[in-house]
C-alpha cells in the first residue's frame, strides 16, 4: 500500500468520524431546544429518502417487488417478513424476465 493509499484512508477516517461527532453535538443541542421535533421527524424522512434513492430509475419489476415488500410491511410490521417476501418477488420477477 503506497503512501497515497494511507493518506486517503487516514483522511477519510478523520472526515467520516468528524461528521458523526458533528451529528452528536447537533443532536444534543437540538434535543434541549424548541426544535426538538426535528429529531422525531428525521428518522422517517431519512429512511423514506433512502428508499426513494434506491428506487429511482429502476425498472418496473423492482417497483413491483417494492410494492410486495410494502404490502408485507403494512400487513405484518415485521422487517424480516417484508424483506424476505420483497427479495423473493425481486428474484422471481428477475427470473421471469430473463
Amino acid at each position, binding site marked *: 500500500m503506497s503512501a497515497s493509499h494511507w493518506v*486517503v484512508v487516514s483522511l477519510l477516517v478523520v472526515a467520516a468520524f468528524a461528521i458523526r461527532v458533528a451529528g452528536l453535538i447537533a443532536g444534543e443541542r437540538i434535543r434541549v431546544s424548541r426544535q426538538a421535533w426535528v429529531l422525531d421527524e428525521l428518522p422517517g*424522512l431519512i429512511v423514506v429518502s433512502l428508499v*426513494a434513492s434506491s428506487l429511482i430509475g429502476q425498472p418496473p419489476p423492482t417497483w413491483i417487488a417494492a410494492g410486495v415488500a410494502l404490502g408485507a410491511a403494512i400487513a405484518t410490521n415485521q422487517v424480516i417478513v417484508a424483506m424476505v417476501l420483497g427479495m423473493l418477488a425481486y428474484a422471481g420477477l428477475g427470473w421471469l424476465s430473463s
Partner: protein
Amino acid sequence: MDESVNALAARNAYEAKRGAIAILPLALGASVYGLAFGFLAVQVGFPWWGVAIMSASTHAGSSQIIAVEQFASTGVVLGAVLAGASLNLRYVGIIASLSEVLAGLSLRKKLFAIHITGDENWALTMSERAKSPDVGAPFLIGSGLVNISMWTASTTLGALLGAALPDLGRFGLSFAFTAAFIAMARGLWRGRSQVLPWTMAAAATMAVISLGMPKAYGIIVGAFFGLVVTFLKRRIEAAAR
C-alpha cells in the same frame, strides 16, 4: 442495590444480543456491496489487509466506494476524500436523531456507538424503538457490532476472492436493502400527519437524482425538504389554533 444493577446489566446484554441477531439478515444484504467494494479496492492497489483496515476504521459504506473510485480515476487524494466524505453527510442527521438513545452513556461509549452505527442498524433501532420505547443503546450497539463486523469481513473477502465470487445480486440479495428499509419506514410510520412530508421528501430525493446528482445528495436534500414541509405544516396548524 446489587440485584437491580445485575438486573439492568442482564437486560442490557439481552437487548444487545437481540440487536445482534435482528441485524443479521440486513447485514448480509449489505455484504453484497461489501464484496463488490473489496474487489474494486484491490484493483486500484489496496492490499486485502488495507481494505480491512479501511472498512473497520472508516465504516462509511458508499463513501468508501466513491473515495476509492475517485482516487483510482484521478489520483488526487484530497478530491477523493472530499467526494467520499460529502456522501457521508447524512450521518449528521442520522447521529443527531440518536441523541435520546445515547443520552446517559459516557462520552467514550457514545463515540464508540456512533462509529459502529451504519444505515442498517440505525434504521432498525429507530424502527424497533417506535414500537417499543425500551429499545435503546444496547440494541444499537449490539446490532452495530455485527453490522461493522459483517461489512469489514465482506469487503476483505471481496478483496481476497475478487472475480472468483458469484453474482449474488441475481439471488435477490441486492434488493435486500430496499425491502428492509421499506419495512423500517412502516415501523416509523406514526399516522397521516406524515403523508405530506414523506411524499415531498421522496419526490425531492428523486428529483435531485434525476438531475444527475449522486444519490447521497438526493437523500440529504430529500430529508431536509421533508423537514421544511413539516416545519411549515406545524406553523400553519399552530396559527389555525
